[in-house]
């Protein structure tokens, strides 16, 4: 690998991990606030909602995006056996760093306490919006550095299958490209001029609809790099082969088609959007279950195949033969535990997407319980494990304290399940998400005190503290590995990828163009009418508010 590309990848992995120290710290603080263990607006100089904003932006945007770019650089350059444009990769990194610093600075100065969804008319500082926009543009440039490499490879390898890992990373970033265009419009054309005071108000329904056009594919953007690890690394780590290479390609193409035209399922409770179009997008949402279940099947089959290679037998007995605590394959449990967590994330996702069933749980604690089983399950464990793998590999260092490294995913899984159990129960009892419960609902001195939320918030708190402990152990392993002396005379680092069980005909899923075309057509079909109605609507534009005052900002000036 090019030395400068190596430096870029290492920066993209280490900077968000450093930010994660705060992101994880405030995750633990939140469960303590929510259980009433902290009864204050702020702790250690950081307000609850300010910390919640940082937790969302750092963990769900900065960490996930920079990891996806780093993994893409590594896999594309390795699998297509070609150097990448250092100018492109460097520009991408530079914009992402500047954007992240701008947004983080505004959050820590208390000028952007608007949560990571930044719903207007709560207003953040213009630098926050500008930072987010630069960050997103930086991530786009990563894809643009891979495209010429891919096209050259296709030309020089006629008739050959594109490596599955490359197909997966391209699918990830094609979805990202489609999904981020509307949110870039929202941020740059609607919110930025409004936050500067140039426009008097915003169309709130339109901005929410543009945000959620982005907000749900964002979830697939988090997940697909992990799907790449599942398809291309997990079978080999388990000691076997990928059961079906075709299933992987089909899943990635299906995600391109189905990721975007379904954001309305986040707006079931919103006014201003016809129920019929919410129903149309419900059907499209549920169709995503098909590639997901196909993936679950293929991975389970691959694991079974691997277990048989290791001497496992029986209809269920083969489970015992997988390398759960193998020192050589310490990465296996990071991917495996994530997969187990994801089963429950997927099932609860189907519940949330089921139209009127959403009324029971919309905006309750059930929602973070669900998405922590996706983004804090397979995604986060995949990022932790693969970052450690790449960092130590690229620096030629051994992974220190392997028994501790092996314990992290299991402890994290126990913590996540406990946390989510508490929040699922609380959500069904009406406990709201995104709320500093300790000040009122979990405070016996408040007229709003709700003793029936005591148990659920406390189960959530125990889970959150266990998750915090797992992260602490992870940082011990990471720092000790970074401090270890580099090995000499080792073979150049490559990411070990799985072979396929057999050679399938993949002609139908070889080219991206037809799948992207269908995706664009579906997006237009699913969004044209509701979007047209929202734009034509005569809603009074909403003036800006700061989170600290009930008086509109225009009146304060």
């Amino acid at each position, binding site marked *: 690998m090019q030395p400068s590309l190596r430096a870029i990848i290492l920066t993209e992995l280490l900077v968000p991990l450093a930010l994660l120290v705060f992101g994880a710290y405030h995750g633990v603080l939140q469960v303590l606030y929510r259980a009433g263990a902290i009864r204050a607006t702020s702790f250690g100089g950081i*307000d609850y909602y300010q910390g919640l904003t940082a937790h969302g932006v750092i963990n769900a945007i900065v960490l996930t995006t920079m990891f996806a770019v780093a993994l893409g650089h590594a896999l594309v350059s390795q699998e297509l056996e070609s150097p990448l444009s250092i100018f492109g990769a460097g520009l991408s990194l530079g914009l992402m760093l500047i954007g992240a610093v701008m947004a983080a600075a505004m959050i820590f100065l208390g000028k952007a306490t608007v949560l990571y969804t930044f719903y207007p008319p709560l207003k953040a500082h213009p630098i926050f919006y500008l930072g987010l926009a630069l960050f997103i543009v930086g991530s786009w440039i990563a894809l643009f550095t891979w495209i010429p490499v891919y096209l050259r490879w296709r030309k020089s390898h006629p008739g050959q299958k594109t490596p599955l890992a490359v197909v997966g990373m391209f699918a990830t970033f094609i979805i990202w490209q489609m999904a981020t265009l509307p949110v870039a419009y929202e941020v740059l054309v609607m919110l930025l001029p409004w936050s500067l005071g140039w426009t008097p108000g915003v169309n*709130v329904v339109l901005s929410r609809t543009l945000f959620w056009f982005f907000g749900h594919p964002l979830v697939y953007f988090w997940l697909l790099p992990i799907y790449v690890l599942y398809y291309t690394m997990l079978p080999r780590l388990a000691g076997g082969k990928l059961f079906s290479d075709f299933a992987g390609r089909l899943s990635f193409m299906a995600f391109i088609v189905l990721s975007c035209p379904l954001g309305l399922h986040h707006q079931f409770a919103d006014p*201003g959007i*016809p129920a019929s179009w919410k129903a149309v997008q419900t059907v499209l949402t549920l169709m995503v279950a098909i590639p997901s279940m196909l993936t679950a099947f293929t991975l389970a089959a691959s694991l079974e195949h691997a277990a048989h290679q290791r001497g496992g037998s029986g209809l269920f007995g083969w489970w015992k033969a997988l390398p759960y605590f193998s020192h050589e394959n310490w990465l296996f449990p990071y991917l495996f535990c994530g997969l187990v967590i994801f089963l429950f994330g997927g099932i609860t996702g189907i519940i949330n997407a089921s139209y*009127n069933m959403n009324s029971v749980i919309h905006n309750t604690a059930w929602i973070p319980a669900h998405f922590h089983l996706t983004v804090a399950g397979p995604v986060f464990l995949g990022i932790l494990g693969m970052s450690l793998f790449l960092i130590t590999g690229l620096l030629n260092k051994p992974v220190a304290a392997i028994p501790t490294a092996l314990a992290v995913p299991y402890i994290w899984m126990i913590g996540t399940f406990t946390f989510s159990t508490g929040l699922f129960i609380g959500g069904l009892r009406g406990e709201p998400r995104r709320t500093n419960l300790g000040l009122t609902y979990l405070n016996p001195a408040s007229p709003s005190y709700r003793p029936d939320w005591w148990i659920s918030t406390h189960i959530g708190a125990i889970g959150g503290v266990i998750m915090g402990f797992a992260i602490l152990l992870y940082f011990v392993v990471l720092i000790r590995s970074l401090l270890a002396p580099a090995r000499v005379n080792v073979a150049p680092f490559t990411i070990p990828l799985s072979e396929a069980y057999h050679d399938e005909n993949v002609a139908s899923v070889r080219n991206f163009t037809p799948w992207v075309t269908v995706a664009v057509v579906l997006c237009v079909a699913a969004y044209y009418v509701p979007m047209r109605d929202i734009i034509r609507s005569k809603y009074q534009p909403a003036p800006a*508010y700061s989170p600290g005052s009930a008086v509109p900002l225009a009146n304060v000036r």
Partner: protein
Amino acid sequence: MASSSLPPQERVSRIEKQALWIATLFTALTIALIAYSVFALHASVPTCMPNMPVFKHGSIIKHGDKNYEVDFLARMWRFEPSKVVVPVGSTLDVAVTSKDVTHGFQILGTDVNLMALPFVLTTGHVHFDKPGIYHIVCHEYCGAAHQNMNALIEVSNQVDDISAEGLPSLDAAHALADAKGCLACHSTDGTVTVGPSFKGLWGQTSQLADGNTRMVDASFIKSMILHPEATPIKGFDPVMPAQALTDDEIDQLTTYIQELQ
């Protein structure tokens, strides 16, 4: 198990196709169940109502015997009305909108779960068979005192008709306190929320965070409005923003607080 004698390539394809079919059937079944709940059980979600005028104040309206409409105005950081009492067996059409930012509106224990967006109307429908307290919670982050924002519906067999608390007053000084944002944190009924209630505040001795005490009089009220950061009060977070009010407005508010004994 007969398939195990096939060559691997065909075996994989066959099992794969079966998996794909099962996944498709499962998805179709889920969609069919949703369609059943919509068409047969009439379960629905909020929709677009472009021609409905948006109200500016909360209110209760009687449409018939035990058949009421309640217009809830969501605003930083309370609902208007804050409490509604209805007889057992009542049917409520609730209409919800927001005066300022995005709020949430869920009547716990019912199917009513809505988003309240500024100047956009949304509705829900609920029937109360059992007496009890039904809590309404704002479930979308709406600013610093979001956790204080709730209301309740009391379903009682002691009453014959609807009544409500927390509806807007016609009093000019109250309207001024409302317009300047004071009432977001200071109640007028004795309830302590983000800040002390205006009711009974006049003439009290305030404990300052630095250990000193101050009598609540005209000069202290004026200094708390113009420079709240100068004298933080013990037991309250120092979150009050300074308000650039005129002397005349401050006099009106002072008189208002004085009268709320």
